[in-house]
């Protein structure tokens, strides 16, 4: 059974990567938030599983924190926000979807090759998943660049945090507790501030299209 668990963790890792790709190609904002929620759930499950296998109680706490924050609290806040802001669709993107996917693949290859020598050095249970975590971070980064509405950019940012947390969990069996709490607090406050922001932007520009925010240039 014990050899089963690393495979299960790898399965969760692949699921998280799959969800990152799905978010990259998703147009409906409600689905985007739901995908983010599922990604958070997979991350929490991986933490719990890792905690069970390695016997570190910290990982249970970390998993619980992820569950509370990324699966319950933040998606609820985001759903409320988009209902008030009345955004549903993000149809136009910088690049069309097939091109986005191809660039995504290139990023995944880059991330894997970068992480391969490092994950060989790691003696953690799920060390091989570092490449996947780095790939998720890069895909979220790409999502932030290629979107033209504010809400998907925010979700890309949060998904990047997910990827980083996953990297920390797999490679080092979680960071020290105080750091994890600090990061969680930062993320929460960040989402709150972004929410306030989006209302301000909406008020000023009557739309959440980021391309309105490109007037400051060097002339």
């Amino acid at each position, binding site marked *: 059974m014990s050899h089963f668990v690393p495979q299960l963790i790898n399965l969760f890792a692949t699921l998280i990567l799959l969800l990152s790709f799905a978010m990259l190609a998703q147009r409906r904002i409600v689905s985007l938030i739901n995908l983010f929620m599922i990604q958070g759930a997979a991350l929490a499950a991986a933490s719990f599983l890792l905690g069970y296998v390695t016997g*570190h109680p910290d990982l249970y706490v970390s998993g619980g924190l992820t569950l509370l924050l990324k699966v319950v609290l933040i998606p609820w806040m985001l759903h409320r926000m988009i209902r008030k802001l009345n955004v549903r669709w993000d149809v136009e993107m910088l690049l069309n979807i097939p091109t986005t996917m191809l660039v995504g693949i290139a990023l995944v290859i880059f991330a894997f090759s*970068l992480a391969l*020598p*490092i994950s060989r*050095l*790691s*003696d953690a249970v799920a060390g091989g998943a570092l490449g996947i975590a*780095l790939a998720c*971070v890069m895909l979220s*980064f790409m999502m*932030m660049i290629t979107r033209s509405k*504010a809400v998907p*950019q925010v979700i890309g*940012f949060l998904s*990047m*945090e997910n990827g*980083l947390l996953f*990297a*920390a969990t797999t*490679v*080092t*069996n979680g*960071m*020290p*507790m*105080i*750091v994890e709490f*600090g*990061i969680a*607090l*930062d993320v929460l*406050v*960040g989402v709150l*501030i*972004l929410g*306030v*922001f989006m209302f*301000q*932007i909406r008020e*000023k*520009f009557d739309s959440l299209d*980021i391309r*309105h*925010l*490109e*007037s*400051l240039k*060097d*002339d």
Partner: protein
Amino acid sequence: MSALYLVLGVPLLGGLVLALVGHQPRARDINVVFSLLTFLAACVMTVEVIDGGPQFVWAKQFYIDPLNVFLVTLTAFVGLTTAIFSRPYMRIEQDHGKMTPPRMRLYHSMYQLFSFTMLLGFTTNNLGIIWVAMEAATLTTVLLVSVYRTPASLEAAWKYFILCGVGIAQALFGTILVYMAADKVLGAEDATLLWSSLSDIKGQLDPTIMSLAFVFLLIGYGTKIGLVPLHSWLPDAHAEGPTPVSAVLSGLLLNVAMYAVLRCKVLTDGALGTQMAGQLMMGFGLLSVVVAAFFISRQKDVKRMFSYSSIEHMGLITFAFGMGGPVANFAGLLHMTVHSLVKSAIFFTVGHATQKAGTQVMSEIRGLIKVNPTVGWGLMLGVMAILGMPPFGVFASEFLILTTAMREQPWATPFLFLALGVAFASMLIRVLPMVFGEETKLKPLAHPPALIPVFVHLALGLVLGLYIPAYLNGWYVAAASMLGG
């Protein structure tokens, strides 16, 4: 009971108190009082460290050594003077209708919380908490940048949040890699991310992991320093917020990011044994200096121009620390100090100048010296100082940096001279008409500006250029040798 508790506790308490009463007219004075208390606590702590040597506080979670103690005092001092400056400034802004009482509340409480996060970042021993503090500093200032609610300020704040958030996420990844390297040597305990423990074992950290970690850390924290090509948020954020915010962002936050990079550089140099970290820093630093200098020559907005000047100087500082060695490190530390002092002084005068003119466009501000001689002279002297004229402190540090570069990295000197020359010419061309030009439509200010901070800062900058007191010299030397290279 170390003074550190006061240094951190006072701003935190101030933030909470001002969140409740920040909209009252008295709040401005309360802000100054809290900053004053923070500064006094920092002085006490400094004296403790001078007498007693490096300190560990609260189960080794905080570490005060020569490198960060004077930065803490500098931060507290500039925080105090900026609070003094902001008293009349924000009052005038409120009269002009750009600020409302609820926003003043936000402004005052975020100001204190921002001080708290910066001081936390300086004094913590935990690499993870440095990250948390940097992110928190970004968060507290994001709302400050957009506090005027103009389209330009919203755009600046959004860019600031997103770009710095992305950058800092890279730094988090770098921190995770450092933790991984440390984990192999120290095992997974809470002490594993403590910088002091890592510094003791830095020779045993795995080079592959540490080199990748440093790249991510440099990119991540470098975004917050404003290194080119990760700088595009900086001119917007520094130019669109209220001037006190620009002053602390330019003068203080950049130093915190630089400090984080320095701590990581010490670990990387120990682990790698090669000059890779220094070379990366030199490359980025040089690029920033050159690019920023050329951007200065294209600016029309006065605060943007000075933000690019900040990028240029931080690039110079990064270059200096990249070169390493006792002289360059000393010069870097000196430059950090004088840059904070002089740049914030410049922003104080520019703030009042823009208030009088009602615009930030340089071609429309003229004849400051005739209308308000203190503002005019303050700006003139400040610009002289920041351009590196003797006998100000910036001249001394730039001289040291350039001579070290000529000795050790001669290939870089033509670029440095070119960039410094371009910046000199561009800024002077733009500032001289502002100060000495023909009279234009400058309005008098409703409340007398607080310009004493300007001259105090400039005086300190002058003093540091002429004579560095013995204890300060000892600090710089100790910190420089700790930075190694």
